[in-house]
């Protein structure tokens, strides 16, 4: 007999969270992420006006904007349809190769869109072996390429939504007279819609941020305009003005996504969660499903990769390839490690449940909506001001200008990368740290462990693979990144992405192929690990949830 009718509380009213408390580090990280964007805005407003922007506005701005919207919309349609369909099949049906497809379908994320564009354009152009197909070019061609390389964002989020969805909604629809197809569109799909929308937002933001693909396929978007303003005219304020337009479009999408995600949280928590049993498909249907699932992997990864390989075999080896590969791994590795560290400090800061920490994380999350070129322009502006300030101080003291330290260095590059990608590191770190409940800390302390000992005997084993996931995600992203690298790289400092782009830009696709190929091959290893791990932990979590619901009956409440 219970003494009180008060609702039973599972945790103490105020669970103190032990462990590191790096709120200040998270705030610093958030400032790093937000500073370039603020600099862009300041540059756009206060920077000197030339007639270049007026010229752009009268001539090419409409093309840029229309292309941007067309490319984004095409990418969204293709990635949305393909990613959702693949997710539904993998989550709900049993067919030949399903287990492998589950993670294989995520691998095109290792393929930079521009590399896929080189391959597909080469294949379908007049001289290519697939010239009977329409040539992949223009805004629709670019949208197609983005759809093929970024659909895994939709696939991963939709798969989780479908797999975690209670099967009862679908079953209820069936008993209410819906056929399988209409049960899918009327019950399953609406429940997964917020997840799909979130994936689509990522696809579109990536498409907006791209530079290499749209240049190669002749669909200049705002990113291209921005790069031309900076590289062709040397006008940072004008680049910033174009950047501001680009960022506004990205932010609209970003906030729509946040809105969707909030709704997703509400819809996820209702009803008893019984994970669906996968339906076994008959042999012919099973074969069909296997073929359908192979299509995006072939089109997004294997076919363009094979073409690049064939090209590379028939062309001279690009000069400086080894150095470029080394630079790429070094930059990406450094950025990945820094991002993993920052991601962890964000996660620890969020764990304190301070409002300041939540604000910092949200601010850092904005970074993902900031295209690389915009972040780079912001970093240039920012560091330029710092340099200018130092010059003044230095000149007053010594009479000469301050040595060039900050702009155009590795530091500037890493700065821009963090600003754009740290958001990707926060999620995995946070979900890893969520396994470390406050009582684990307390249990360890009561068993005689000192705080530092708790950190390495309890926290680290539980969060290390989450931190690795965060670091590797950023590693892959930075490897693929092109526009920010082009703007900020030091003189004579080349990465694989820049090398490939430069050759492709000179119509020397043969020499562009090998660096692109090496880039994908390096990215593929971490990507396989990431894809398998996400798949595994997701399944384990669902199993644990179902198990818990079964054992405690909590699922009925």
């Amino acid at each position, binding site marked *: 007999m219970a*003494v009180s009718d*008060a609702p039973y509380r599972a945790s103490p009213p105020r669970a*103190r969270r032990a462990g590191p408390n790096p709120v200040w580090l998270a705030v610093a990280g958030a400032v790093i992420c937000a500073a370039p964007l603020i600099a862009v805005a300041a540059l756009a407003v206060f920077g000197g006006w030339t007639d270049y922007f007026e010229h752009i506005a009268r001539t090419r701005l409409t093309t840029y904007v229309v292309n941007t919207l067309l490319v984004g919309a095409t990418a969204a349609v293709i990635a949305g349809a393909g990613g959702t369909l693949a997710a539904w099949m993998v989550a709900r049906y049993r067919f030949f190769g399903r287990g492998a497809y589950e993670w294989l379908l995520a691998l095109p994320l290792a393929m930079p869109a521009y590399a896929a564009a080189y391959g597909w354009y080469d294949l379908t152009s007049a001289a290519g072996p697939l010239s009977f197909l329409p040539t992949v070019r223009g805004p629709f061609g670019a949208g197609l390429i983005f759809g093929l390389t970024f659909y895994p964002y939709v696939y991963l989020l939709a798969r989780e939504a479908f797999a975690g969805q209670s099967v009862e909604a679908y079953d209820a629809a069936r008993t209410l007279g819906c056929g399988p197809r209409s049960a899918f569109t009327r019950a399953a799909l609406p429940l997964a819609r917020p997840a799909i929308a979130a994936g689509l937002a990522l696809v579109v933001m990536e498409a907006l941020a791209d530079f290499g693909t749209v240049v190669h396929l002749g669909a200049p978007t705002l990113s291209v305009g921005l790069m031309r303003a900076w590289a062709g005219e040397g006008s940072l304020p004008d680049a910033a003005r174009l950047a501001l337009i680009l960022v506004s479009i990205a932010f609209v999408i970003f906030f729509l996504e946040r809105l969707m995600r909030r709704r997703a949280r509400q819809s996820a928590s209702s009803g008893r969660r019984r994970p669906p049993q996968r339906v076994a498909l008959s042999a012919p249907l099973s074969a069909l499903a296997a073929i359908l699932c192979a299509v995006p992997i072939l089109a997004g990864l294997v076919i363009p990769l094979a073409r690049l390989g064939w090209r590379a075999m028939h062309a001279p080896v690009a000069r400086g390839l080894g150095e470029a590969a080394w630079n790429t791994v070094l930059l990406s590795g450094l950025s990945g490690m820094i991002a993993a560290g920052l991601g962890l400090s964000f996660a620890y800061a969020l764990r304190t449940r301070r409002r300041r920490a939540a604000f910092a994380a949200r601010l850092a999350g904005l970074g993902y909506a900031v295209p690389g070129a915009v972040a780079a322009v912001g970093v240039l502006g920012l560091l330029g001001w710092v340099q200018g300030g130092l010059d003044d101080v230095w000149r007053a003291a010594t009479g000469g200008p301050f040595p060039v330290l900050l702009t155009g260095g590795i530091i500037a590059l890493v700065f821009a990368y963090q600003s754009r990608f740290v958001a990707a590191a926060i999620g995995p770190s946070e979900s890893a740290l969520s396994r470390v*409940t406050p009582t684990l800390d*307390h*249990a360890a302390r*009561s*068993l*005689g462990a000192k705080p530092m000992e708790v950190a390495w005997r309890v926290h680290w084993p539980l969060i290390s693979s989450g931190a690795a996931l965060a670091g590797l995600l950023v590693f892959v992203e930075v490897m693929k990144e092109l526009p920010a690298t082009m703007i900020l790289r030091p003189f004579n400092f080349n990465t694989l992405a820049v090398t490939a782009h430069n050759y492709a830009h000179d119509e020397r696709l043969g020499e562009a192929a090998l660096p692109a190929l090496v880039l994908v091959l390096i990215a593929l290893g971490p990507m396989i690990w990431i894809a398998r791990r996400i798949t595994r932990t997701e399944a384990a979590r669902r199993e644990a949830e179902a198990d818990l619901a079964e054992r405690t009956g909590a699922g009925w409440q």
Partner: protein
Amino acid sequence: MTTQSLQVDGAEVRFSPGTAAIRDVRLTLTPGKVTALLGPSGSGKSTLLRAIAGLERLHGGMIGFGGEAWSGQGAHLAPEKRRCGVVFQDYALFPHLTAEKNVAFGLRSGSRREKQTAAMEGLARVELTHRAHAYPHELSGGEQQRVALARALAPRPAVMLLDEPFSGLDRRLRAELRETTIAALRAAGTAALIVTHDADEAMAVADEIALMASGTIIQTGAPDRLYLEPVSETAARLLGDMEAFDATVAAGEALTALGALPAPGFAEGAKVRVLVRPEGIVVSGGPDGLEAEVLNRRPSGGHVKLDLRLPDGRTAQARAAITDTHASGDRVRLTMDPRFARVVAF
């Protein structure tokens, strides 16, 4: 084995200025004895437990063990130095360690082999040696609870603290685990504090019960004494059902509708409350007593519960033998068994 006891004296913890989660708490835990800390949700039980474990700092009063000051007067011994074994409500097993490694976590001295042996002995005490290499997520709820118990006992703590250790388990398993747990605690001979909001559980496991309400301990004593001699209405209600009647003291007795009860120590004319357990409301066979109407008859175990309407309109509950045949609508006469009644201040 130690013969020193844990003393909590005037302990106070505040979460925000002005509102104390616990205040003026006095409690002694004796080696070899199991004390149950019973109170409703939000009464401060867990906070007190956490304060003893060193997971909360005191804002007043002190906690000490033997001659050693643990908390208070500016001192705060770190949790890892207190030799408090804690079984958390969610068990807090380390998910990355096997059952055996969990139990070995707190073992400080000895070689790896010695630690392993000690951990296996700990698992043997809770009959889980066959699950030594299982990870927490592979264990059932009851097994997890037993691993948590073995883990807390392994470093031979001076005090064992258990926070609602049976709350996540189903009824049958709960009874079984209670036995195992109490046996293990007695074998270890430590002072033990079990936090619970379940009065039956407290009575079943404890040598002594401390009743907690609104952040303070209102009564401490053996389970049967607490049941029969509550110091207040709140204390009485914490341990079970009861009826309360207003009365005035006249000629050393509190006079109620059910009869008079000696009220020693109360002034003449004082307003008092008379608390009667359901067992003390007796359906008399004779013509004496208060007339009441039976509203409902519910068999429960070896007896029946009768819901009654008293002449003043209020309802009360009586307990009678299962052989009692009164049905809904019957009129009965009630008397009071003074052994189940108690006079407390208004």
